[in-house]
């Protein structure tokens, strides 16, 4: 088991010093109206970048309104940073256009690939954990961060398969990527819990093994027990053991903006506020 490191945010690389917005919520279309009626009730919002790539219409109108009242960060799901193909130039241009419109304090996507040979699976598929993957993803992450001119963070995904070619642990692999790319990390606590169950590793090893000073944001969500495996469905609140792992994470990172994701069976906005308060309470207990 790797030794825990107590890191204060001040030790972050200068270009990764971003604000702590407290507890936020993933921006979803069913909540647009309620958000307008309750400005300031949430610490920050995170928008899925690709949902706002269209050049006009209501999505951008809503995004502008949310941005006018709340801190907003962008989170992509389609960059495919580890895939066989180099990052798509048109995709990056669209993302940079959105970044210039929204001016988020950081942008994130996933440590994964989304397809090969021109196919796009719209999923976050795991990568083999090898030195070749580290080299590839680090090179591209640096390129993306330079291109967007804003701190860029990679998120650990939940996974349901492992490759026979993997030579590193997932946390060593993504940690090395972040160090070599000099980029940030978005740490998804629920994804660690899901992958740890599916692959039989100790989730605390993952938490302790990361370069904590690079964690710019934390994700929390719920998952579904399918019997043979856990599935990252974002369809319920995070379970208590995930919040306990979050508590341990915060003790290592210090104050980091934390976001609740909810994508299936989405409750009314007002019903999510108590969940955000529960997360805020854990934060207060750890951070004082």
């Amino acid at each position, binding site marked *: 088991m790797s030794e825990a490191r107590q890191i204060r945010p001040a030790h972050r690389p200068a270009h990764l010093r971003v604000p702590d917005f407290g507890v936020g919520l993933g921006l979803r279309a069913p909540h647009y109206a309620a958000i307008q009626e309750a400005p300031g009730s949430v610490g920050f919002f995170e928008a899925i970048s*690709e*949902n706002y*790539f*269209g*050049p*006009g*219409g*209501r*999505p*951008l*109108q809503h995004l502008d309104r949310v941005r006018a009242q709340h801190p907003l960060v962008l989170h992509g799901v*389609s*960059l*495919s940073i*580890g*895939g*066989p193909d180099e990052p*798509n130039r048109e*995709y990056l241009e669209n993302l940079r256009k959105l970044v210039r419109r929204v001016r988020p304090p950081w942008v994130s996507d996933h440590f994964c*690939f*989304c*397809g*090969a*040979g*021109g*196919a*796009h*699976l*719209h*999923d976050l*598929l795991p*990568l*083999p954990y*090898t030195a*070749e*993957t580290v080299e*590839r993803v680090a090179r591209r992450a640096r390129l993306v961060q330079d291109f967007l001119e804003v701190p860029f963070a990679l998120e650990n995904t939940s996974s*349901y*398969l*492992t*490759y*026979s*070619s*993997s030579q590193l642990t997932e946390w060593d692999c993504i940690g090395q990527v972040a160090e070599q790319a000099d980029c940030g990390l978005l740490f998804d606590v629920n994804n660690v819990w899901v992958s740890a169950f*599916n*692959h*039989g590793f100790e989730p605390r090893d993952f938490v302790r093994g990361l370069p904590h000073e690079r964690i710019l944001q934390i994700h929390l969500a719920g998952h579904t027990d399918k019997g*043979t*495996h856990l*599935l990252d469905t974002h369809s319920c609140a995070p379970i208590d053991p995930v919040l306990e792992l979050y508590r341990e994470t915060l003790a290592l990172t210090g104050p980091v903006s934390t976001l609740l994701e909810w994508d299936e069976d989405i409750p009314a906005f007002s019903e999510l506020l108590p969940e955000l308060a529960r997360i805020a309470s854990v934060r207060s207990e750890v951070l004082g």
Partner: protein
Amino acid sequence: MRSLDGALHWLTTQVQSPRQLGEPSEAERWIGASARLTAAAQVEIYREQYWLRHIEALREDFPGLVAVLGDDTFAHLAERYLVAHPPQSPTLRDLGHALVSYLEQRLLQPELLLQQELVLPHAPLCLDMARLEWAYVECFDAAEAPPFDLASLERLGADAWAELRLQFSPALRWFEAHYPVADLRRALLAGEPFVPPEPHYEWRAVYRDAEGLLWDRPLPEAAARLLGQLAANEALGKACENVVAELPAAAEAFDRELGDWFASFGRLGWIVGAEAPAIRPS
């Protein structure tokens, strides 16, 4: 060879397959051992999610088509469509981009339906519905364009009108339909049961208004054909001639209604630019 890209290409192919992995040893070549799941079962989780996710995304974009076909038949159509047009865009918004042409092709060549064991009841109606619903998708997030002030055209002389070229809103589509699909769609989405409608020939426009709301409305055939000519950057005079050549009855409609059409197009925000000798920037 177990190269990085070899693994990623192999997994992509397996995930996109409509059928489960056949040979377990093939998966074991690439996928690591797990105490919980076989190598093939690990891949199957992703394959199953791929099909669920993409068929659901098509359901969301084509709810009227789902209501006409029923869930199972729509899912079968969606699966065959996705095999023919696997997703390549980073956004799911583009997923249904070829469904209209896919259906058109199968109406022209019914043997394709047999080859693919695809039963498509009410096929012409389905094609009209797909055209309507894809027009809605395209207008939803098309580029913004401020409406053009038609008052600036009032000083144009008759010759200049003939030379007038117009630009239309990116959030405007129009199409020819053989069934009253727009009214049918509204009824179906309101929860009414599907009853096959009688054929009804019409042209219909779909557009987004200044508030970002989406609408559809019927268009006179001559007006629709004129829009087509003008959108192809034909000058107004020549555009009218071309329409009358293919639809002689349009001549009377132009004499009687052209001014009203233009006023309506302008009021609805459909016209976003105009170029004529007298108003061309110096």
